[in-house]
């Protein structure tokens, strides 16, 4: 099975014991869940940077004025770093883990595609202007531009001593980071993994996606007939992963099991997915195989669902290929219609959203916007949450720019068949 753990039976079960999120819906998990349940989009006017010269004028923005706790060295941190640190702190706090004894056995696995780009753009603008005027630039902060900024900031903030890595794989970064963390915990490389992603709005991605004509002037409508592109968002999300035995031994409450993960690549085109979603289908099958689940056991899907014509069609084809006759009845939602596309942290935020749905026994809706596309035969959750009190297994998918695909399977704790 491509891109998946071929011998999961020999591995240890991995539990999710903490969740944290910073999103356009607020600086914590509770505001995320409340907002997701509401089905009201957070995509709207924004002021992270001047966008009058851009083709579109909406996005889902985090309210910086509502930042709860200022990290000590905030002036040296990018906005992205601050999102990441806040999400990781919340996840650690909620997991009630005492990192004190195991910092050397704790790793950080993060994803980001923008790093400190927002601040670097401001610096470059000032530098170019100064050069044009023949004057030296003012000594403003040149924040770390590289994508490892947020993950490293989390590791420094929490005093981590184990492996730290950042994956930058565009829209699949967050999911791949979590996937890597699951594997690292399973193979015993670390006892605890803090995994997630962080991305901020910035001019480069906003103008870039607009140059590709991939951004909708209106809030995106994934899988709908009149979908016209994506909406951009920003934020961070983090999960705490540890071996299930260890979690139970320390009296933690496992929120879910990280049951399966897989990553593949379309190897097809730099910006368009494979039209039949072949790579995505292989990733889904790989994650299912790792979780030792049949496709029929998945109760709902948190799709990548960006709202672009091509992504949604390809993803739908992938679902049809994997789930067959069951695909039209499988509840599908997309977080992106509510919080926008968080790029490098999308996969992480969506993993968190998927676990929240499992915990609460309901699938969050998308806004009831747009009309049904006859070519998209999926059971979309629209307007109101779908009550699924007995939901046990859920799938979260990410299909990235450049062709990388990632799939994660989560299982509500208490339902895992020990015989698997």
């Amino acid at each position, binding site marked *: 099975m491509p891109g998946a753990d071929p011998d999961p039976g020999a591995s240890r079960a991995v539990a999710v014991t903490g969740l944290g999120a910073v999103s356009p819906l607020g600086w914590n998990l509770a505001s995320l869940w409340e907002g997701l349940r509401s089905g009201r989009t957070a995509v709207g006017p924004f002021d992270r940077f001047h966008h009058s010269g851009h083709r579109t004028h909406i996005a889902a923005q985090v309210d910086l004025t509502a930042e709860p706790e200022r990290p000590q060295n905030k002036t040296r941190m990018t906005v992205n770093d601050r999102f990441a640190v806040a999400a990781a702190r919340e996840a650690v706090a909620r997991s009630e883990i005492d990192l004190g004894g195991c910092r050397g056995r704790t790793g950080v696995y993060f994803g980001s595609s923008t790093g400190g780009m927002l601040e670097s753009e401001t610096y470059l603008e000032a530098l170019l202007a100064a050069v044009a005027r023949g004057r030296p630039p003012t000594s403003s902060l040149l924040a770390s531009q590289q994508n490892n900024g947020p993950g490293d900031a989390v590791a420094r903030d929490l005093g981590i001593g184990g492996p730290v890595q950042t994956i930058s794989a565009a829209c699949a970064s967050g999911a791949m980071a979590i996937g890597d963390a699951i594997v690292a915990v399973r193979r015993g490389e670390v006892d605890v993994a803090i995994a997630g992603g962080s991305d901020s709005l910035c001019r480069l991605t906003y103008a870039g996606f607009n*140059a*590709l*004509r991939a951004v909708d002037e209106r809030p995106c409508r994934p899988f709908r007939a009149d979908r016209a592109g994506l909406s951009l968002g920003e934020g961070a999300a983090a999960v705490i992963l540890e071996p299930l035995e260890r979690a139970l031994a320390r009296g933690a409450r496992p929120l879910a099991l990280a049951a399966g993960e897989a990553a593949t690549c379309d190897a097809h085109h730099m*910006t368009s997915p494979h039209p039949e979603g072949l790579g995505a289908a292989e990733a889904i099958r790989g994650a299912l195989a790792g979780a030792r689940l049949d496709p029929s056991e998945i109760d709902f899907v948190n799709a990548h669902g960006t709202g672009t014509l091509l992504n949604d069609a390809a993803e739908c084809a992938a679902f049809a290929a994997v789930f067959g006759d069951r695909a039209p009845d499988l509840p599908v939602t997309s977080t992106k219609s509510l919080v926008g596309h968080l790029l490098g942290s999308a996969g992480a935020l969506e993993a968190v959203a998927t676990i929240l749905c499992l915990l609460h026994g309901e699938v969050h809706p998308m806004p009831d916007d747009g009309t049904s596309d006859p070519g998209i035969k999926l059971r979309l959750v629209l307007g109101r949450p779908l009550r699924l009190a007995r939901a046990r297994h859920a799938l979260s998918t990410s299909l990235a720019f450049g062709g990388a695909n990632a799939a994660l399977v989560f299982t509500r704790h208490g339902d895992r068949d020990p015989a698997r």
Partner: protein
Amino acid sequence: MSETLAIRLRIKHLLVETLHLEGSDPSKIVDDAPLFGEGLGLDSVDALELVVALEKEFGVRIQNHEVGREAFASVSALATFIDGRLAAAGNPDAGS
């Protein structure tokens, strides 16, 4: 040279420069040959790249839904499309 021929030649030069068709001679690009799929074998990103270049070169604004296969099917089709936009805008570049 007529206005229409001038537009076609500008488009051909733009194709070669913008799309990095190194070694290609603009004058050898056939007016009615398909640009996408077969022929020059360009793809969707090439189309978008071309749109940015056309907007800059001719000062027209091309909407998302216009970035489709009909207007962009060949050099001739593109020239007709541009011509129409320039005429509508009362632009002296437009052919008669």
